[in-house]
């Protein structure tokens, strides 16, 4: 669900390009762990990635892996990011090398990385092969669901020399996923709406569905196996969610534009203006802060449960 977090502006790109030029010289003296023998892992695309020692100059081309690298304490080794990698705040100081989806190989290579982290997708597998041709190691990481985070943490931890930190992140994730706190009363039934025309909702394939379940809520479209699906408005009306949740970049509580459209008034949650804006920063992607996201969602659901039914 990274797509929500994707926001880019031309001016920002120009600034980023300037920052990139300035950042090249500075990045060389960043502290990094000493090489400690060959590091070999198998990435999420089944490729064997081998480094002479822990990576010292890492370019991260996905917001989820950038956040994870900083969480592991490898932030100082990150020398390139995408325009969408805005968390944590320290990541914003890292030069931008592109928007991630189809990486600009030359712009990445110009930062002289010894490791490029890519989101696992067919397009990025092609990019990884391109990086291999110019002698730059690339690792493909899948981070779509909560259970992916522990493995991704161990993968990146091993490659950057932060194995111990990765173990502790993985343990915390495991604990968060096992925690089954019961909520008093009837569970809040929610629908995550991605887009209004045609109406697109989140199904069981998304980690947002997992977050909802862990927070004591029920995704009314849990029966759809896909991460997201186009459904008809009357299906939403029939499922009758208590509240409609959506991701928002700025934490405003304003109702979405479709709330005033007449056809949407058939949905009770819209008619009664039961909306839940979730900050995309915390909820926009599976991250090591998943436990925090679950706790926040639980708090929001409990606060709203009284007025939503």
């Amino acid at each position, binding site marked *: 669900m990274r797509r929500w977090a994707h926001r880019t502006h031309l001016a920002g790109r120009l600034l980023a390009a300037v920052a990139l030029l300035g950042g090249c010289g500075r990045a060389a003296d960043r502290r990094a762990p000493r090489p400690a023998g060959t590091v070999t892992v198998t990435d999420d695309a089944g490729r064997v990635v081998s480094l002479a020692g822990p990576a010292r100059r890492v370019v991260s081309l996905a917001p989820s892996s950038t956040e994870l690298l900083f969480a592991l304490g490898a932030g100082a080794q990150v020398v390139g990011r995408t325009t969408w990698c805005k968390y944590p705040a320290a990541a914003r100081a890292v030069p931008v090398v592109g928007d991630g989806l189809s990486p600009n190989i030359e712009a990445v290579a110009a930062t002289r990385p010894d490791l490029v982290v890519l989101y696992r997708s067919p397009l990025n597998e092609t990019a990884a092969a391109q990086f291999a041709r110019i002698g730059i190691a690339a690792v493909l990481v899948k981070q779509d669901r909560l259970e992916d985070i522990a493995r991704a943490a161990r993968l990146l931890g091993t490659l950057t020399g932060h194995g111990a930190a990765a173990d502790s992140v993985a343990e915390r994730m495991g604990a968060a996923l096992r925690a089954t706190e019961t909520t008093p009363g009837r569970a809040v039934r929610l629908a995550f709406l991605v887009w209004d*025309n045609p109406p697109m909702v989140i199904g069981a394939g998304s980690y947002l569905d997992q977050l909802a379940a862990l927070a004591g809520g029920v995704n009314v479209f849990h029966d759809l196996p896909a991460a997201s699906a*186009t459904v008809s408005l*009357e*299906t939403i009306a029939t499922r009758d969610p208590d509240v409609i949740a959506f991701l928002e970049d700025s934490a405003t509580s304003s109702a979405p*534009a479709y709330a005033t*459209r007449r056809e949407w008034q058939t949905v009770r949650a819209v008619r009664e203006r039961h909306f839940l804006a979730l900050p995309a920063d915390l909820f926009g992607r599976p991250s090591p802060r998943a436990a925090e996201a679950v706790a926040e969602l639980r708090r929001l659901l409990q606060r709203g449960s009284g007025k939503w039914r």
Partner: protein
Amino acid sequence: MALRWLALAGLALAALGLAVVLGPAHVSLADLWTSEIVRNLRVPRALLGFVVGGSLAVAGAGLQALVRNPLADPFLLGLSGGAGLGAVGAIALHVGGPWALPLAAFAGALAAMALVFRLGLVGGAELDPRVLLLSGVAVGAFAGAVTTAIVSLSEAAQLRNAFLWLWGGLSGASWDTLLVLCIYVPVPLLVLFAAARPLDLLALGEEPARYLGADVTHVKRRVYLAASLLTAAAVAVSGVIGFVGLMVPHLCRGVWGHQHRLLLPASFLGGGVLLVLADTAARVAVAPHELPVGIVTALIGVPLFAVLLRRWATT
């Protein structure tokens, strides 16, 4: 002849009835008139689908006669490209409001239409079919290129969703959209119906049509503007729905012949029936998922077309 009209009218009523009765939500027949879902979602959606399908088919029939080319469809003349650019531009510029997307698509389609029309005047002979077709394709390609450029430089997510909207669907149907369309559509529709006789003459070629007393220049201009305005309105409420405008006029020619006095009303009813049936299938076939209606019009329309083509070839 009367039997054919009766059959078509019966088909139209049956299609509308089916669209109201069937849906992913279960509504029993007894609750049909009290159900909120039926009254505010299914009925306006069925009627909107009918008007949109009919408008597209009439626009297609008119344009096919105008450019004397059986391949002409309402979106051939750059309108879909212009509408797409309008919609994507509105999202990229963060234009808000519940009507932003349809209005921007409408404006984009009109801008494309104006540009194609202006280019069509360049050839000397006003609205020369060849120049018109070429400039339509060129403007469409240009708008498509600009759209792709915006998409690749901007928010990936929202724009992808805008494309989903653009590929057609009646999800946004409501009594409001139906009302807007019903106020707007009759004028261009009547202009086209009134041009039925000159369109018949135009089929003989521009020179013969002129000798037989048709004011060719004015007819072409009126037909072009009316068909484009109809299509732009259809895009605004339902995105780009293919095949209806291309195929329905051909299907109707097979049954009603080439006289536009009969062909245009038959196309309107036929287009309405096809789109309403396609939309019902789109809502019900894979429920709770919903298919883009343009896919279903192609899935229903193309085999139907193939069967009729074989029948015409053998007779």
